[in-house]
């Protein structure tokens, strides 16, 4: 559907300008579906929003265990939203384990909806509760709504005569119905969704719809010591929107690059969390001229991609931290042979295997420096799920124009998080010019464009241009192997100058929030965009002289960055690592930028940033 009517708010509702809701339950409780449907409803109500799913590391952990808890948080508002929110206003806990692992985040006095039906001895034990929190008063600080959702759901669906197991499975729609009632959302869209999701089994369609309606009705009738809310539509730019996650946006951006450049694409990839979904998504688009190779390992993946580039396709490889480390020797060859290559590193928690399902920004220095010898390449980063689309196109554009590998950094938080996204039109996107060399006249493989310093690209199959390239140093003037001392230096400097020159081809650094100069600049990169932006805005409303600049181009850095940094008394660099961008700017500009590190596998909370900023202003 492209359009939808939304319910008009009844006077009985408290109007909020934003709300943060978290659904938490067993891996088997369908919390991700519930979250997605609730998100769709908020989107259709034209709220701005941001979501954050939080999966367990285990595939399907035993029911009721703490490490088996799956969560989904959404922040939706009648104003701009930049993060999934810090502390939830509403927590839905489907079992004791979910309560145990999530309660600490719920706002004091927040609304706590629990499925009492799951609070039996066995589950309480698995969650490590001595006594039942629903009874021992430990939840007094919260607005507890205690419902036996299991029983009510089973009752609601009994007509369909489902198996006990299947009946229980409908719990999440009952809960969704109740939440829809709470926020005045229409049921139709979800009913439609249920209908075609389960179209093969009418009994399930009926049952889930029944559960949904029952949950909604329960709200209407039951005495919930709580009034209803309304979060009005947000004033956003007009256009057509969709909800999108970072991995999908990355994949679609790469698809766009094929259309904008007119080239086919080969993705060489080896599965790894959280990057695998980009491989999965791209493997569906063979008709875009995209071929995906699930290689035997990351090394083969990058080498196959380089081979494809050598043959005239766009070579792409996608991975995460440990896989990135394995690709570095191959990337070095792409640098030495000056072939286009797009490398997407969807960062995760480390070191080593680390925390595979958690987010982190700690591959920046690896991306910039992690190869033997002087091996410069271009590094860029996406800042929001939707931005991944544009940065993926940009990575391809720069790789093709400068005949160089380009590393695009995203992370687990961007990969799985979603946001409403204003859908662009293909013909609004900039074309990517690619010229293959065909003229034998005076050809050698390392002839360069005087402006970009990119070498000419002569692909196999082109008559009269047969030539050999490789990883040994080449003569600047003939492309043949050369061990001559001064030639080597010339080539090293040329490769470096080519990458440095990209700074003239990318946007200058903008101030994202606040004045062009002032007391404090908060300098960020990557997925911290939303939290920093929001924190800085809040501080500014408190009258603090602070601005936010977010770097999308990390190597080379924007050419005005140094000058921009010097316009502020102090520079704070919050990163989900122990301080990496801060090292780059300190060494390049000699500014006393200060690091604000966080390495917890979790994004920054807005409040953490606000507090840190306030401290700095006071000190």
């Amino acid at each position, binding site marked *: 559907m492209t359009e939808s009517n939304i319910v008009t708010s009844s006077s009985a509702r408290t109007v909020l300008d934003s709300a943060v809701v978290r659904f938490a339950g067993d891996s088997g409780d369908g919390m991700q579906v519930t979250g997605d449907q609730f998100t769709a409803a908020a989107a259709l109500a034209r709220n701005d929003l941001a979501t954050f799913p939080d999966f367990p590391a285990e595939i399907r952990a035993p029911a009721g265990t703490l490490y088996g808890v799956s969560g989904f948080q959404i922040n939706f508002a009648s104003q701009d939203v930049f993060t999934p929110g810090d502390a939830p206003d509403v927590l839905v806990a489907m079992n004791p384990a979910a309560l145990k692992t999530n309660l600490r985040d719920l706002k004091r006095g927040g609304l706590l909806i629990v499925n009492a039906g799951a609070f039996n001895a066995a589950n309480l034990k698995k969650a490590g509760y001595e006594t039942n929190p629903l009874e021992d008063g430990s939840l007094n600080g919260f607005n507890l709504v205690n419902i036996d959702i299991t029983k009510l759901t089973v009752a609601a669906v009994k007509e369909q005569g489902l198996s006990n197991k299947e009946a229980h499975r409908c719990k999440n729609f009952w809960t969704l119905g109740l939440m829809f009632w709470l926020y005045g959302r229409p049921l139709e869209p979800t009913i439609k969704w249920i209908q075609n999701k389960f179209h093969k089994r009418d009994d399930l369609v009926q049952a889930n719809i029944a559960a949904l309606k029952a949950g909604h009705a329960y709200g209407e009738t039951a005495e919930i010591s709580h009034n209803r809310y309304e979060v009005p539509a947000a004033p956003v730019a007009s256009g057509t929107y969709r909800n999108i996650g970072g991995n999908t946006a990355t994949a679609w951006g790469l698809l766009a690059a094929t259309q904008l450049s007119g080239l086919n694409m080969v993705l060489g990839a080896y599965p790894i969390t959280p990057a695998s979904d980009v491989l999965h998504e791209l493997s569906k*688009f063979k008709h875009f001229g995209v071929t995906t190779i699930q290689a*035997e390992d990351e090394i*083969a*993946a990058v*080498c196959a991609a380089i081979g494809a580039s050598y043959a005239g396709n766009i070579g792409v490889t996608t991975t995460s931290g440990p896989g990135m480390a394995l690709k570095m020797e191959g990337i070095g060859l792409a640098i030495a042979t000056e072939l286009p290559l797009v490398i997407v590193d969807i960062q995760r928690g480390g070191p080593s295997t680390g925390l595979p399902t958690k987010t982190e920004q700690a591959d920046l220095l690896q991306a910039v420096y992690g190869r033997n010898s002087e091996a410069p390449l271009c590094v860029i980063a996406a800042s929001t799920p939707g931005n991944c689309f544009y940065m993926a196109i940009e990575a391809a554009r720069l790789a093709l124009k400068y005949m160089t590998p380009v590393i695009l950094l995203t992370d687990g938080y961007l990969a799985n998080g979603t946001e409403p996204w204003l859908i662009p039109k*293909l013909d609004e996107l900039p074309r990517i010019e690619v010229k293959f060399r065909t003229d034998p006249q005076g050809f050698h493989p390392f002839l360069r464009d005087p402006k970009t310093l990119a070498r000419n690209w002569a692909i196999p199959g082109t008559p009269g241009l047969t030539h050999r390239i490789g990883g040994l140093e080449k003569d600047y003037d003939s492309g043949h192997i050369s061990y001559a001392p001064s030639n080597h230096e010339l080539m090293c400097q040329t490769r470096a100058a080519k990458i440095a020159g990209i700074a003239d081809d990318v946007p200058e650094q903008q101030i994202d929030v606040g004045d062009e100069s002032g007391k404090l600049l908060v300098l960020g990169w990557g997925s911290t965009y939303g939290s920093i932006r929001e924190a800085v805005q809040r501080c500014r409303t408190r009258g603090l002289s602070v601005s936010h600049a977010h770097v999308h181009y990390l190597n080379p850095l924007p050419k005005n960055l140094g000058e921009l940094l010097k316009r502020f008394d102090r520079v704070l660099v919050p990163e989900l690592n122990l301080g990496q961008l801060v090292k780059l700017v300190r060494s390049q500009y000699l500014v006393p930028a200060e690091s604000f590190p966080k390495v917890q596998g979790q994004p920054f909370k807005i409040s953490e940033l606000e507090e840190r900023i306030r401290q700095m202003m006071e000190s």
Partner: protein
Amino acid sequence: MSNIVEPTRLTKKDFETDQDVRWCPGCGDYSILANVQRVMPELGVPLEQMVWVSGIGCSSRFPYYMNTYGFHTIHGRAPAFATGIKVANPKLSVWLATGDGDGLSIGGNHLMHCLRRNVDVKILLFNNRIYGLTKGQYSPTSEVGKITKSTPVGSADQPVDPACVALGVNGSFVARSVDVEAQHLGDVLRRAAHHVGTAFIEIYQNCNVFNDGAFDSFTEKAHKAERQIRVEHGKPLIFGANREKGIRLNMRTLALEVVSIGVNGVTEADIVVHDETNPTLAYMLAHMPYPAFPVALGVLFAETRPTYDGSLSEQRLGAELKQGKPDLDKLLRGGETWTI
């Protein structure tokens, strides 16, 4: 850089480059190069449609001397690059030069996966049973107890046989030849060129600097006839100066044995007839312990089956037929959207 040449008129010269060849004088690589350059013109493949890919090693210098497209990549990874090249442009004729270290030590896994996928690439493995370029350490094909710079009291690991490895991973074409056997090597190269799928050729190559004479015992004129058996599809496995010896399957032990035709009742009828489509026979031939048995040369195994690059092309084609022209706008607007 070469100029455009009519494929039909191609000669050996056309495949030579202006680079001087930098192998040690007397290296077996020279004869392999000469034989390849001799055979290539017969294939009717235009210079620009051919790509030579290699890893690192003396053998991997090969592409620099072939006046085609060439990619001298990194150590051990050539099969992965070749796969990317072939998948990106299936029209190309892709050849690969590797060594026993490049192909079986660091590169063993890529070789294995290239073979199992049956990527349409021709692989020449120059087996000199030594690391040449790094000045003489033992390789995965060096005999046990080999004394080298890195094994002063002898190597402790037992070697692999390249052909056996290729058969173990379902290689669709597995052959053996010798650097200096122009005729035989030429024939094998032609067979490989016409095989659709991964063609794996192990070439015994003499490294006269670090492992001189490694194969003399069965390549030298004197013993050749006795110590080699040239296998040919449909022909009995007979060898010997006077073609008086043969290979027979011992029913009791289910193992091959060398017999003398005419001696205690053995007739040609007892001799196994080579069937290059029989993987078991290929395995037995590749596995024959030397010198108890002769070294089997020629096409040990050949079978046609779908190629990886071919199947992927079909999938692309199928998708175009089914899903039509790519339409990004349609994609971006698919699913739930809303307009403001």
